[in-house]
């Protein structure tokens, strides 16, 4: 079930376009944000009903773009480490192994307490400050092992 808050957001997003279908992407993201960063089949069908589009078209959108989390649940802090060229040249793979060891999981996994999910991603447009990663909405740049220790410790302390 979508909350009043989410429904209001979807209503607002629709005003940006001449076509309801154009609001599918924004609506899915609004639902995902309000549902602990995850998206279910039911959510997609609800979006389809609200925007009066065929559910298969909403599933198609959710399946095409990488930022919709529906294949498997992601943890409360989604760590996405860039492993494209500029970051790789400055040691991204090493940092990925370091985070894997630090969290006790491998890429694609979620910690048992659901605090962290670790993923690799392609270029996030922060190449001049490589290596970098994104956690939630935030970019963390010019990474070193020490910086990663501090970032992970801060998140653990906050939760």
């Amino acid at each position, binding site marked *: 079930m979508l909350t009043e808050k989410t429904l209001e957001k979807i209503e607002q997003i629709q005003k940006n376009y001449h*076509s309801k*279908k154009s609001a599918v*992407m924004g609506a899915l*993201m609004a639902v995902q944000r309000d549902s602990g960063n995850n998206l279910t089949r039911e959510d997609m069908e609800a979006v389809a009903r609200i925007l009066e589009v065929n559910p298969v078209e909403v599933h198609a959108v959710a399946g095409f773009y990488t930022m919709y989390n529906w294949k498997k649940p992601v943890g409360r802090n989604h760590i996405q480490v860039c492993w494209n*060229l500029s970051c790789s040249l*400055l040691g991204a793979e090493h940092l990925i192994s370091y985070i894997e060891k630090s969290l006790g999981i491998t890429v694609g996994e979620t910690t048992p307490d659901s605090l962290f999910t670790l993923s690799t991603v392609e270029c996030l447009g922060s190449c001049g400050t490589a290596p970098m990663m994104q956690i939630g909405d935030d970019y963390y740049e010019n990474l070193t092992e020490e910086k990663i220790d501090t970032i992970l410790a801060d998140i653990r302390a906050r939760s």
Partner: protein
Amino acid sequence: MEKILLKNIDKPEAYKLENYVANGGYKAVRKALEMDPDHIIQMVKDSNLRGRGGAGFPAGLKWSFIPKDPTIQKYLCCNADEGEPGTFKDRAIMDNDPHLLLEGMMITCYAIGASIGYVYIRGEFEYGAAKLEDAITEAYEKGFLGKNIFGSKFSLDLYVHRGAGAYICGEETALLESLEGGRGQPRKKPPFPALAGLYAKPTVINNVETLGSIPAIIEKGPEWFKAIGPEKSPGTRICGVSGHVKKPGLYELPMGTPLRELIYDHCGGMRGDKKIKAVIPGGVSAPMLVEADLDTPMDFDSMGAKGTMLGSSAVIVMEEGTCMVKVAYITNRFFSHESCGKCTPCREGTSWLTRVLHRMEHGEGRAGDVELLESLCGNIFGRTFCPLGDGAVMALRGALKHFREEFVYHVAHKKCMATTE
């Protein structure tokens, strides 16, 4: 040199409307609104401004394709789906100086007769999207957007549309599909977007940096703009430098600045003073150059003559000792991951290339693999629906052209000749 695009970047709170105005902003759009729209298009044509997204298409010419019939709805879409690996220039403008982009969009919309504009920003740029939305809200509140802007007959609504993770949406027709709420797969051209774009209406799609250059052209004139850099490829360019240089970052320089000057004078040279092995001059799709090419001016035509492209001016610098098989593998893995799946040569070809490069890189290369790569390239290049597959091939062919022996060595010896790995 006078900066055009990054002039406000280091000023405090440059993203606020009042500060943008205090820094001389929104003068150009006031001037434009007193001019005939066709005159503005002519000025942009005369300036020789070429598209900064990568293709270098003349911006004024693109605008002139839009039908003049005032009864037809027209759209402007700003392509802010910055995703070409190595590129981080548009993000800097949106994060720090969003009103520069809005002013460029206002002038462009007035010139082409569009009353609605969208900024298609990549989904990961949460910060930039929020800054743009705040800037748009502020612009409405102060009468810079909405009905009858500055008391003129011109009305304009601008919106932010966020992507959700798909490199292909930087291709203009895929961007339109995505804006219409579908999978971001490219459309067949023709019809071109200038005739049938967003919702099948005439649409101009311009990059952030292109639109950011417009206010200066209107304010100071096309002759002033054309005097910066080479006449056929003028203006300034934001070069985003990454990799093994001492000072990576963004450098706004006159078009045509040689790579050597960029790397040694502006970026402080190479980390550890090592030699340069290769330089990718315009995002990973652009074939790499080597030390002997460093005096090539960074403009569209000079880079084209060298068999590569200026692209997004994303310069990735690699030092001696970098494994080119690994570079090729990472690059192709990216293209394979981002292939939209619409056409077979790209979908199957890029993933096949990646599998071959993966086994080479991991010491499991087989006899004939280098030839297999070359054969696959021939079956992808020029046979795909959009330029993504071509980009993958151009990148790989660039690496093979200069460093074929490294690929052969990897297969024969199951290890790298460039590194100690």
